[in-house]
């Protein structure tokens, strides 16, 4: 277990400010600082445990205040995004495994999806579970190209980087196909909207979710600008509907109507983050090399079991 250390947080703010989200004088605690490429953070409320991945390290880790840091899985098929289903099971975007898979209670893996219309999907990056049990995930081709991140077949078969809805029945439905590089995704509090960011286009799009789970044509919600390391990657929403998205130099926060509220600056190259803690007001930030934690003034939307 790494000894906790603290580092001050700086931020910059838009006209509406960040005062109700980040208290002055906030600090980051350092939970881990030895990662090769951190990603995939998710808080498990029932277990009071934080999970994340090290893609290049091919490992899933977890941390809790009670037990410290523990190894969950290695190799992990270079798992990327993680979330929880309604039963509290870990569901993974299988980056190198080119699948969506679920970790069962007995430690076995259930593969939930691998192909679309007979072709192997690209490399699932991030995912979110809707209350109806469907899994929405992004499928860029990064793992097929990137150094050190591939699996057993590096060939891309699909001519688009899709966003999918995986039905509880196992049917895979393409919901958006015109992204340059879709990455993070998150629902609004009432699940009427789905936000999906585009790493290369440096923006966030928002789509209305229809009753059948498909999406409307969508529109650009916000552009994510700035200097420094980091791009649109991980994305989450708080209980007030504010949208948090990784970007240059930190976590960029937008109001529900798309106004930039400000940025929590993060040292290093941020990749993703998660809300956590009993009250969902902890913010766990993952960078390429580290896991950090701070406190927020507004709870984030929790994931996983509703109890």
């Amino acid at each position, binding site marked *: 277990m790494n000894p906790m250390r603290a580092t001050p947080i700086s931020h910059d703010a838009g006209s509406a400010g960040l005062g109700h989200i980040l208290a002055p004088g906030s600090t980051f605690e350092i939970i881990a600082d030895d990662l*090769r490429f951190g990603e995939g953070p998710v808080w498990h409320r029932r277990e009071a445990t934080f999970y994340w991945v090290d893609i290049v390290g091919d490992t899933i880790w977890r941390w809790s205040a009670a037990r410290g840091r523990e190894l969950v899985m290695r190799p992990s098929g270079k798992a990327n995004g993680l979330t929880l289903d309604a039963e509290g099971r870990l569901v993974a975007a299988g980056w190198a495994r080119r699948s969506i898979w679920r970790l069962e209670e007995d430690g076995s893996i259930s593969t939930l999806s691998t192909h679309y219309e007979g072709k192997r999907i690209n490399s699932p990056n991030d995912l979110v579970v809707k209350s109806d049990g469907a899994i929405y995930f992004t499928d860029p081709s990064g793992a097929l*190209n*990137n150094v050190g991140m591939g699996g057993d077949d590096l060939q891309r078969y699909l001519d688009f980087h899709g966003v999918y809805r995986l039905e509880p029945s196992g049917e895979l439905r393409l919901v958006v196909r015109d992204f340059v590089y879709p990455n993070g995704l998150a629902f609004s509090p009432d699940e009427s909207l789905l936000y999906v960011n585009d790493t290369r286009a440096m923006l966030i799009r928002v789509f209305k979710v229809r009753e059948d789970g498909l999406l409307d044509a969508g529109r650009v919600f916000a552009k994510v600008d700035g200097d420094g390391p980091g791009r649109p990657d991980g994305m989450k929403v708080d209980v007030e509907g504010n949208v948090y998205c990784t970007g240059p130099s930190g976590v960029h926060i937008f109001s529900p109507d798309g106004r930039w509220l400000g940025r929590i600056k993060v040292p290093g190259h941020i990749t993703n983050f998660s809300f956590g803690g009993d009250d969902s007001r902890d913010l766990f930030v993952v960078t390429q090399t580290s896991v950090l934690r701070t406190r927020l003034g507004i709870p984030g939307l929790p994931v996983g079991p509703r109890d």
Partner: protein
Amino acid sequence: MNPIFECLYVAESKELGGLAWTGSGMLFADLGASMIRCFNPDTGKTDIWRRYTNRTNGIAFGPDGALYAAQESGRRVVRLLEDGSSRPTCSVLDGRYQNHPTFVAVDPAGSVWISDCFSVHPAAGPQIFPMQDCESVLRLRRSPQRPAGWCLERMVSGIEFPRGIAVSPAGDRLYVASALKGGNAGELCAYLIDEHGALGPKSVPYRADTAIHGLCVDDAGRVLACLDRLHGTTAGGIAIIDCEGAREDLWGVPGYTPIQCAFGGPANDELYVTTRQGALLRAVGMRGSIDARER
């Protein structure tokens, strides 16, 4: 006598590289489009053979039927299989990923020889993996006892900007083109390969006052070397060098900078050339001047 080159295809990307004959068509790497295209001499048409090749440059068929592809952006050599898949090999050497593989050659035993360069093009993905300490010639071999089933070895270290690479038909000699002085000079380096696969000392059978790019070897063991430009001109050329180092001929390729050359055609008497200008060229009727079977 200078052969006449005809232009068969011009790629919009203007960035062509490796060549490999399939038995019925000539594959050529379109780096800028991340594709491998295929020219069919029967129809005169060029089609896409493989998409999403991650800046594949050098290509060569192995005795296993796989096309070995040097993915510059992926910093690896992959095996492109007939079923459409792309399988990894081994791309880690001394705990680091290799640099940017440029060209490949497969010897009769199935070993893959790789020119491994630094590049101005960043690799795909996060830039978190350090380069090797030097540019090298690497050899990739099957190694069932290794976890990946492959073994990557450094065979020549400290070579400056290795480009073209070729192995003699008997598999007993390795040729490597090295670009010197920022591309203003070039060396053709040769190494004997002994029966255990070890390399002998370097010899330099040919020097040029321009960069040497791709290489190929004809059936007689003569090396064809793509020259960036001929002395005193802006035109590229191809030098033909015999095994002992004598230059037998020098052909101009007016208007083009040849990047790679390879023989093909049903009678192996067609010389294909990719160029920096994005053109695929062909000279036919090479029998007698090149093909050993005429001798």
